[in-house]
């Protein structure tokens, strides 16, 4: 397996996550798709950390996981707040700003 295959695999995960973010209605699935994009970034960090013999990529992956944890906390807080107001977890019910 060369580096190109790993980069292509990371890009496949990114594209699946992008499709999930843009096409699904449920907020939870949108957040899970964002986690897929995080995983794609993490795989690229680890692969390039390996071929450059540089540990910065692995340290950045740990920071990435910390940011993902914060994103999950904020996202689920917003989800609970939206569900309390709208009684729905779909993102297209929050359309008050639509012209």
């Amino acid at each position, binding site marked *: 397996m060369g580096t190109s295959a790993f980069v292509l695999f990371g890009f496949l995960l990114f594209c699946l996550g*992008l*499709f999930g973010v843009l096409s699904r209605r449920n907020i939870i699935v949108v957040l899970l798709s964002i986690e897929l994009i995080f995983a794609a970034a993490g795989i690229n960090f680890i692969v390039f950390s390996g071929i450059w013999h540089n540990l910065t990529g692995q340290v950045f992956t740990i920071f990435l996981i910390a940011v993902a944890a914060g994103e999950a906390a904020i996202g689920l807080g917003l989800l609970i707040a939206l569900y309390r107001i709208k009684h729905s977890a779909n993102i297209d019910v929050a359309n008050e700003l639509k012209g």
Partner: protein
Amino acid sequence: MMVLWILLIAFISICAIGVVFSKSPITSAVSLLVGFIGVAVLYLALNAEFVAAVQVLVYAGGIMVLYIMGVMMTDNQALRLARQTHFQTLPVLGLVLVLFVWMGYRLYHSSYEPVPVSPPAAAAPAVPGTSAAPAKVPEESNTKRIAMVMYSDYLYPFEAASVLLLVAVLGGVFLAKKEV
């Protein structure tokens, strides 16, 4: 060896497809949980043991439990029977396919060889995955070397990440409580 890599990548890809295309959110969450364990195995195979351990502990143990509890708290019958996708699904599918084919072609045919900057450890395996030689055991473990880098070069980002997590958790609690 090659077969194992292909199996692992196919496993993670199938889990990712299950996240995006499954009907119910709980199936998506469990599929992502299993897929993240596969990603941890991939990290382990790429000589990043500490990150693999953190991936299992934080993602599979913490974040996914949070998501599954979120699914539990926001589930109802009407939501389950409603349509799961937007009206723009087909255009987005076409757009993402075009992006994947075009940009994936460019990415696959790019060169990723590192610039030779007088490598200190030239005996280490050049490309991850192609190395089958267990001869050269590194003198320090992966965890120890990560700690050296993280607590010297990246000390301030590390502290900033702790503040970020504190603020995020407090913000999540504040957003989710009643009478916002």
